């Protein structure tokens, strides 16, 4: 079963998902048809969800078949969507039909993430305080 990672903070603003991984300092915005994809969670089979959107927006089938599976994989790679097994969660009903096709996008903001490093191991004195090497 595919589910939205419950450890993330996810909010919709004006039709755009803002997702924050507050543990790692990574932020994401999810736009376009990818918002409908997240709204369709939880689901068992992503192919069926993609097919549903193609049938709902037949004039955009080619674009949806090309772009939506790619964004779905990115959402999995970033652990925004998780594939969980042995859960009590049941799949959602049929997704809402999107009003129109908008290019699905996942934007990743990692500005702060490189600063979240663990401090390296230091020499310490008898009270446990770090000993500065140049002192």
């Amino acid at each position: 079963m595919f589910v939205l990672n419950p450890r993330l903070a996810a909010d919709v603003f004006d039709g755009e998902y803002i997702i924050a991984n507050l543990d790692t300092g990574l932020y994401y915005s999810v736009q376009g048809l990818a918002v409908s994809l997240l709204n369709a969670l939880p689901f068992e089979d992503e192919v069926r969800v993609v097919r549903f959107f193609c049938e709902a927006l037949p004039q955009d089938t080619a674009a949806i078949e090309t772009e939506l599976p790619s964004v779905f994989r990115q959402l999995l790679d970033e652990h925004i969507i998780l594939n969980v097994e042995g859960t009590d969660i049941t799949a959602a009903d049929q997704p809402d039909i999107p009003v129109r096709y908008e290019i699905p996008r996942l934007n990743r903001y990692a500005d702060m993430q490189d600063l979240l490093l663990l401090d390296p191991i230091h020499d310490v004195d008898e009270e446990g305080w770090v000993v500065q090497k140049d002192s």
Partner: protein
Amino acid sequence: MLLLTDYFSRLLSLFTALPAYHTDCLSLAGRSVRLNTPSDILRGRLLPALSHLLVEGEPETTGLTIWYAVDADLPDRVTAPPWPGFNAQGFNAALDQEAVQLFFQPWQRQLFLYSRQQRTGIYWVQTAADLPWWEASFPFRALFHFWTRDLPAQLVHAGAVAKAGKSVLITGPSGSGKSTSCLTLLRSGYQYLGDDYVWVELTGHPVVYTLYQTAKVEPDNLKERFSDWMPYVVNKELLGQQKAIFYIRELWERSFIPAAALSAVLLPRVTYQERSLFERIRPAQALLAMAPTTLHHLPHHRQAAYRKLTQISTVLPGFRWSLGSDPQLFEQSIDQLYSDELS
């Protein structure tokens, strides 16, 4: 393994055993704060940034008590937190911090601890020489943040200015131009509430409160834009190693205000054009500017803080502010924003 609650209790016992100490009382967003210390040196270094909040007499109730000292003031030495895993932001994800929170950067000999139940914070630094210079510009910042976990309030990494009773938050990462914008607007007649960290109260419509009266300016920026302020730099002798620090209330008493209703969030961005321009942005963009930089510095109880930042972004209109090079056009741009969008 030692529990964080026991570590806190041991440290607190060193303070409560003191035969004498000095107490200062603050009023912060309508709540009272007691600062207790036996250390004249620390008091002299840390209190000026908060002096605008000082009140006479003892409050009937105390919202927050802070004890602070150096090792030499206490009856026993303080040992370092024994747990591994603190990151560069002073946070340890492996440590249970529900009851007691701890900010500790292992390369520094200072600690911030807070007990939620007792609403009591501790700031300890081994010697006055170990006090990082920036702590004097925003003293007890981590403790105030810990305290807000259970309050309808949030510290925000932002400056704030006001005019005609309406204030704007100016937010973004370090180097985005928020401090320069705030101080330039102060000089051109706007009221000032902060240039780095402010307190936002979220009971009803958001209201911003001045938290620190300090302003910090990079030395190059000081020479280029604020050279006439040089006589008022409080840390002149250390300018090569530190940002220039000013006490704004003492310089601009009539422009220094304690609080104002918030009307917008502005995201400055330095550009290489002459004109300064505003453009409306989505609430999501305001959140993506404000949350990472605030939560980077304040990593504890991020979920609760993030929710409050979401609330601010949702309630207030947001604007991208492309900062141009012409100072006159810069001032005109925000005057225009006030008359067109915030009136």
